[in-house]
């Protein structure tokens, strides 16, 4: 069981590092949003799954499940809010050649 917890924590930390590298390296708002939204959802969900595996049948485990469900609902919604705000302000996505 402890190896499963360590594996899920390693997966979560790996996806966190990947998302941060993507946010720091990508050239545009929309590509950065892509990296941030997917990697943060995967990383947080696997870390919370590792915590639930560690606690087992416990009241803390159910609270962690409530946090995981809330995060799974609100993280894509907030990413969509940021993307729509950027699109409505008229930012053009990064492409092959910018027509001015």
């Amino acid at each position, binding site marked *: 069981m402890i190896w499963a*917890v360590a594996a899920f924590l390693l997966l979560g930390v790996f996806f*966190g590092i990947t998302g941060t590298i993507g*946010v720091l390296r990508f050239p545009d708002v929309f590509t950065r949003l892509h990296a941030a939204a997917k990697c943060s959802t995967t990383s947080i969900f696997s870390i919370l799954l590792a915590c639930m595996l560690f606690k087992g049948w416990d009241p803390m485990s159910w609270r962690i499940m409530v946090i995981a469900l809330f995060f799974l609902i609100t993280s894509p919604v907030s990413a969509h809010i940021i993307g729509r705000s950027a699109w409505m302000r008229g930012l053009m996505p990064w492409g092959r050649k910018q027509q001015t």
Partner: protein
Amino acid sequence: MDIAIILDTAIYCLLGVAVLSLIRVVIGPEPEDRMIGLNLTASQVLAILVLAALRLDQAIFLDVALVYAILGFIGMLAIARSMRSAEGSS
């Protein structure tokens, strides 16, 4: 292998990653870049809070994490709304 060492390693790695993702908040050219960095940092701090609740065996940190997630979502909503209203008035 002790579970406390694994949890400590994960907490320190996530702390470094959260500090690194704050760089995008500082240098972001557009306001949306700052919002992306803030969202990513908030999610990593949420993971740190849940791991600290397990490490210290304090169930009150989980309530703090839930309230932090709710307030982060509402804050992102409010920032987007205020930016759109400022854009419309000008």
